[in-house]
């Protein structure tokens, strides 16, 4: 007899219509989070903080309580949510621009304060939603609509290293960078998010998972080429790994 080995997680909307561009990794991140909510039995106590970027329409996907944070303010909103309802499970879902450009202050302070929330930051090295402008994470030489000759450190400075900076924050319990460029990395990303979620459940502090993710549309690459770019161009600048782990202590 057939057994069902894969199905849509329970918190995904019944007739969920993913509106990301074809091959965009955002959708994978959204799915594995939903799977973890099932696995950790969190569905009915979760409050999601969505953010402004391609992920703004989280409510199209999740059948969960969701609050939309203004651009960059997800960790401040999450702080308000968690402080008012300490028994709920709270995570943010943000782009790299949201988290590390306009929201860098809120992000680092949220981590430093050790808010018992988890931040998921989808790093696609550009501003997807607004049409592919330079992001704080755009790597040197990368072409975007506001760096058509490639990012030049003399003009536009250097990329922000999200996990490296976050791991300086004493309130952070778990910080890791992962990627969705292959099946193996998808598995690993899920493991990392799980550790982050558990650190929240165990009240150990703030957690952050930075996920290297594709933006085929604005990178002007096929989904396959985009994954290749992650491995070849982004890995060297943004090494994967656990940057901080206070959970075992």
């Amino acid at each position, binding site marked *: 007899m*057939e*057994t*069902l*080995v*894969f*199905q*849509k997680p329970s918190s*995904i909307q019944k007739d*969920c*219509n*993913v509106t*990301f*561009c*074809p*091959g*965009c*990794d*955002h*959708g*994978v991140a959204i*799915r*594995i989070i939903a799977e973890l909510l099932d696995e950790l039995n969190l569905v009915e106590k979760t409050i999601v903080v969505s953010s402004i970027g391609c992920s703004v329409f989280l409510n199209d996907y999740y059948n969960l309580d969701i609050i939309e944070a203004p651009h960059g303010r997800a960790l401040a909103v999450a702080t308000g949510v968690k402080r008012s309802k300490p028994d709920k499970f709270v995570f943010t879902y943000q782009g790299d621009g949201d988290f590390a450009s306009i929201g860098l202050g809120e992000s680092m302070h949220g981590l430093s304060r050790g808010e018992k929330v988890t931040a998921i930051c989808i790093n696609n090295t550009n501003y997807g939603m607004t049409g592919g402008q330079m992001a704080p994470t755009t790597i040197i030489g990368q072409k975007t609509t506001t760096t058509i000759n490639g990012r030049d450190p003399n003009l536009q400075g250097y990329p922000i290293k999200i996990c490296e900076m976050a791991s300086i924050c004493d309130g952070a319990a778990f910080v890791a960078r992962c990627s969705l460029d292959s*099946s193996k990395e*998808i*598995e690993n990303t899920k493991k990392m998010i799980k550790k982050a979620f558990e650190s929240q459940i165990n009240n150990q502090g703030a957690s952050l998972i930075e996920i290297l993710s594709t933006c*085929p549309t604005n990178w002007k690459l096929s*989904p*396959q080429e985009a*994954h290749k770019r992650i491995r070849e161009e982004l890995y060297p600048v943004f090494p994967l790994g656990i940057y901080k782990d206070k959970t075992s202590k």
Partner: protein
Amino acid sequence: MGRVVIDKEKCKGCFLCVDVCPKKILKKGTNYNSKGNYTVYVDDPNNECFGCALCAKRCPDMAITEVYR
């Protein structure tokens, strides 16, 4: 012995699933769905699919809605 259920209306034809299938039984289609996207289809005459679900876990659009083994 496995089987995958693909919701073609949700498929956007990124063909990421095609690349990850160890059995190479997912194929690039040349037909549009109603949204104007090419879609993937299963070509598994020898019942090679063994339900590893790699395709479903790779699909960014949750278009592979179920995998059976």
